[in-house]
């Protein structure tokens, strides 16, 4: 008898989690480089329903994992020369206190000492794995399609100078990456080079959350939650009737 209620409950708690994931996607609709996430559910089969009916099995729902949609987000032009968007595969490398982290959020800036840093002030790494520092008199910073950084001193002829290349890397399994706060991802996989790096200067990769998809998912979750509720209510009604009828018979 309790089984119906417990199955309904397993569905409801799964729906609650999915709702949290959808809410997080919608909250991050305008977060640069954010990748939308969706839940993966699985059937958990209990072989024996009860002692009374040993040949019947019960299936509960459980949340198996999460899927990160790694599709590119839209490229949004900001006009800031230190905003860089990656089109296609690849992640920027960022040195944090906890080790190297990866991000698609290419909103960089210079700190007081002229070092290229993220919003948190963590240095952005070059392809040789070292931070990139500019001198105070280096004016125009140009980032080419392949991530090569060139600077020039305005007012001086032939002052263009190559200052290295942005470190851009990818991984064999993009699902096996852990989301951390501040748009960073971490993984224990080894870095593999990106065949053809394509970056766009003066732009930022917008979040790839599709509002319509999220809104419809939200409606589905809400209605599924209600239907699970009906299941629980029906089971509860049956029990109530059973109690009153058996009591009347006795």
């Amino acid at each position, binding site marked *: 008898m309790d089984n119906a209620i417990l199955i309904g409950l397993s569905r409801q708690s799964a729906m609650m989690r999915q709702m*949290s994931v959808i809410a*997080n996607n919608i909250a991050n609709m305008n977060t640069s480089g954010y990748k939308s996430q969706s839940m993966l559910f699985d059937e958990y089969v209990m072989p024996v329903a009860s002692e009374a009916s040993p040949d019947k099995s019960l299936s509960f729902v459980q949340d198996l994992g999460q899927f990160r949609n790694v599709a590119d987000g839209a490229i949004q032009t900001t006009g800031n020369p230190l905003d860089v968007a990656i089109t296609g595969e690849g992640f920027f490398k960022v040195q944090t206190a906890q080790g190297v982290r990866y991000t698609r959020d290419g909103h960089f800036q210079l700190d007081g000492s002229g070092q290229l840093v993220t919003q948190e002030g963590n240095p952005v790494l070059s392809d040789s794995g070292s931070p990139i520092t500019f001198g105070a008199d280096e004016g125009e910073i140009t980032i080419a399609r392949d991530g090569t950084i060139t600077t020039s001193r305005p007012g001086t002829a032939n002052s263009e100078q190559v200052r290295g290349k942005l470190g851009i890397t990818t991984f064999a399994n993009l699902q096996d990456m852990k989301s951390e706060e501040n748009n960073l991802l971490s993984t224990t996989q080894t870095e593999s080079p990106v065949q053809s790096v394509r970056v766009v200067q003066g732009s930022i990769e917008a979040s790839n959350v599709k509002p319509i998809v999220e809104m419809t998912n939200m409606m589905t979750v809400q209605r599924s939650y209600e239907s699970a*509720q009906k299941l629980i209510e029906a089971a509860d009604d049956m029990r109530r009737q059973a109690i009153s009828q058996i009591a009347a018979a006795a």
Partner: protein
Amino acid sequence: MQALSIAATGMMAQQLNVEVISNNIANMSTTGFKKQRAEFQDLLYQNLRRVGTNSSDTGTVVPSGVQIGLGVKTGSVYRIMNQGDMDNTGNKLDVAIQGRGFFRVQLPSGEDAYTRAGNFSLSATGQIVTSDGYTVQPGITVPSDATDITISKDGQVQATMPGQTTAQVVGQLELATFPNDAGLDPQGDNLFLETAASGSPSVATPGSTGVGTLLQGFLETSNVNAVTEISSLITAQRAYEMNSKVITAADEMMSVTSNLK
């Protein structure tokens, strides 16, 4: 129910986004104004099933765990320091900067502030001052009987005196550059202060290596682009609405539960 608080962080972020955009639009005609942009980041993640942990004794590994993100926060509201357009005013004491650099202005407190707004005037004593009356550094005094003032590309201020054929040099304007312009602290009145993030200023004559040049009779307009701002405003408003829908939906789910009994 986490969805409620997650959506609330989303609404707060979009509200701030609208505030930043409205400030940009409000300053669309402010001389030397540099537009701002709000940049968002995801919040902490709760690990319900940690990615990469063993899922059996034989060493199989969970390929993608269950991580519930807890919403969004504002990473930074940064200033886009690119060049504004040049507006021809014809005023002798309007000076626009082409390229990098800020005018250095002395505040009444004695501190130095920095500005891109070159709409200067003369004070009662003939000093070049900003529209608020603060002295432009280094103090330059124009003789009261000067008939004309010329400011050259590299900042030399020359005054033509009555009865003289050659103009006389009365001072030299200077520009300050910072390693990180976006790190300056805005004070209102088009003024900025130096911070640890901006780095310390290096003062040079206009036109020297890495420093912009001056243009007399022009003002630098704000670099706000109306089309971009309005489209960002629409995006922000819709995102705000969608977050509020999540709150409604989460609320209805809770009401379903509370009606169970």
